[in-house]
């Protein structure tokens, strides 16, 4: 595989240190806004606890709530489809498109359709989809993938966007004014909204008791697409359910504050049933989620509501960029979700963390992300997806540290070498030494001192 492992991709990202600093500060600013927003709610920690419990309960009764949702949605006139994997998901959507002979499609942000690579699938069948979320629109024009699940183009500066728009939309060269650039995108998108026959959206929350669902956006692009198109297809993972409408109050308060520091998303659109002239479809996708639900240590990763607060707080993400995670969902949450989808291809991700724990603290549904990172490391090593040299090193270290006399001898010899022949360690082969000095090697260990001075 030609996909770069996280450490290597991160190293390339950091080579442009000024840009890394800009990326880090931009995302830290979002984290800081989140802090300010959550501190206005004295009940914040209680809300997190409620959300976590509602989601835990739902996951434990998922079969019941899924059937409940299907039944209610069907009685509302929504056509419900079940997809066991990405192939199923894409085929179902293609069939709806083909059956209705449609060729103009708009799509608002849906990480699930990214996960399923729907755009490429339809493109190969000669069907074009237009992403209408501004960030997604930008990365789509650049033929890139989103680097962040809430802020898809956060890796780009306005100068980059200006160049992309100049190339594709013929905007003024060198005009970096965000207002001008957004206005140009809006102008182009508007025409496509009006002429499209089919709109695809994601789903933020699906409510079992009512068979309805909620889509949250800041740009109103989901609504723009859906209101003028004859067909609305909403795609959701099986974990998007909540039992009751009254639970929405908990999640809507948590979602936007965690994501961007806003009290609520600008648009929280409720979809209950199709209008008389409209078709409404919901595609419910498993794609490995039920397998994750079966992993006791990792099941509660399915509580995730995709706010990306863990991205913004992660000191590693901020300094390595979303693309270094080579997955649809990057960041800490991606690092515990992706090994479930493909353990070998994503075996590097749980190691792309210092286990600092900040991700678990910002998580609005209290997923123990850093603990799951630790546990995935164990699973990945147990499954043999580990470098042989690293394994041998660890075995050697374990042997030394299990035998006090060997440990003391190794320490003594090691320190002597460091003092006497520093060049043996202070060289290119020592990764630590590349940008850091080695610690001073004292003549006596603490134990030596203790024997003489106790």
């Amino acid at each position: 595989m030609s996909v770069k492992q996280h450490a290597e991709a991160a190293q390339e990202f950091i080579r442009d240190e000024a840009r890394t600093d800009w990326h880090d500060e931009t995302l830290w600013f979002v984290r800081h806004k989140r802090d300010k927003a959550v501190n206005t709610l004295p009940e914040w920690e209680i809300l997190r606890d409620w959300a976590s419990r509602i989601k835990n309960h739902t996951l434990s009764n998922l079969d019941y709530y899924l059937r409940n949702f299907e039944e209610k949605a069907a009685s509302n006139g929504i056509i419900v489809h079940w997809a066991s994997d990405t192939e199923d998901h894409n085929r179902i959507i293609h069939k709806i498109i083909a059956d209705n002979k449609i060729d103009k499609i708009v799509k608002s942000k849906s990480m699930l359709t990214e996960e399923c690579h729907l755009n490429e699938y339809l493109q190969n069948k000669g069907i074009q989809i237009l992403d209408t979320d501004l960030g997604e629109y930008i990365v789509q024009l650049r033929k890139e993938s989103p680097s962040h699940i809430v802020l898809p183009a956060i890796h780009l500066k306005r100068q980059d966007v200006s160049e992309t728009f100049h190339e594709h939309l013929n905007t003024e060269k060198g005009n970096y004014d965000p207002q001008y650039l957004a206005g140009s995108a809006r102008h182009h998108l508007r025409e496509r909204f009006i002429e499209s026959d089919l709109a695809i959206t994601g789903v933020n929350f699906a409510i079992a008791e009512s068979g309805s669902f909620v889509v949250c956006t800041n740009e109103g692009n989901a609504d723009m697409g859906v209101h003028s198109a004859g067909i609305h297809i909403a795609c959701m993972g099986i974990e998007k359910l909540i039992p009751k409408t009254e639970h929405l109050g908990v999640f809507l308060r948590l979602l936007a504050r965690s994501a961007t520091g806003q009290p609520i998303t600008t648009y929280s659109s409720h979809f209950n049933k199709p209008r008389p002239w409209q078709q409404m479809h919901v595609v419910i996708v498993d794609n490995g989620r039920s397998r994750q639900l079966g992993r006791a240590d990792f099941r509660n990763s399915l509580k995730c509501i995709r706010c990306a607060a863990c991205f913004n707080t992660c000191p590693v993400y901020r300094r390595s960029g979303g693309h270094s995670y080579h997955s649809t969902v990057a960041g800490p949450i991606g690092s515990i979700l992706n090994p479930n989808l493909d353990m070998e291809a994503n075996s590097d991700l749980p190691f792309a963390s210092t286990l600092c724990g900040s991700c678990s603290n910002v998580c609005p549904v209290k997923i123990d992300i850093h603990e799951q990172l630790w546990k995935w490391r164990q699973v990945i090593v147990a499954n043999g997806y580990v470098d042989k040299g690293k394994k041998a090193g660890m075995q050697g270290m374990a042997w030394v540290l299990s035998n006090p006399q060997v440990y003391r001898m190794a320490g003594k010899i090691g320190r002597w070498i460091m003092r006497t022949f520093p060049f043996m360690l202070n060289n290119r082969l020592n990764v630590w030494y590349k940008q850091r000095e080695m610690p001073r090697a004292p003549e006596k260990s603490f134990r030596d001192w203790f024997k003489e001075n106790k």
Partner: protein
Amino acid sequence: MKVGLFIPCYIDQFYPDVAIATYQLLKKLGCEVSYPMNQTCCGQPMANSGFSDLTKGCDVNFVKNFKDFDYIVAPSGSCVLHIKEHLKEGGDKAELDKIRHSVYELSEFLVDILKINRLEASFPHKVGMHVSCHGQRGLNLSSMSELVSPEFSKSEHLLNMVEGLELLKPVRVDECCGFGGTFCVFEEAVSVKMGKDRIKEHLVNDVEFICGGDTSCLMHLEGILKRQGIGVKTIHLAEILNSTI
């Protein structure tokens, strides 16, 4: 009060002064301190790298050395957290539980068990506080910037008792330094970048020392400081609390 002094392997080998300060401080405060002579390592380097099945030898050795104390105290939040969360061999459940519940990081032992409210310590310097993640978010040694909760810090509480010390905090009060165990070599670029960014914030405050409760973070920061020729020194909390200059 029988206290077993638990000195993490890399402190024993490379930073004996931190261990000496811890030992002297505990003695000064009236503890009956023993240092079990056959201790090695808690096993964390293997476990955090995904090899927790290789930590049996360390577990057995740890239990053998530390099973007979009222309290086990270490100048490291990270190693204490590992013992609390991952010690699983070397004794029956009751023995392991006893160890897990009696192992303390130094500042939490001083504040919660000894409940000290004055210290004969003096350190007339500008000191920047580096909060270590495992001590903070793992052992709850201080409030965390992500949570909506009252502010507190066990190490600051102690540092405030030191005469002449001026404590300064970086803007991002509890961002990770990037050490992260074997992360520091397997993700070298990110690790060093994180360390450099921490140092930059302390330099703005014009500190003379960066103080922390985990020598591993300090070793990483010290390595960068020295390579960059910056005169700021790193110092462990125990060394300041034991200081009588």
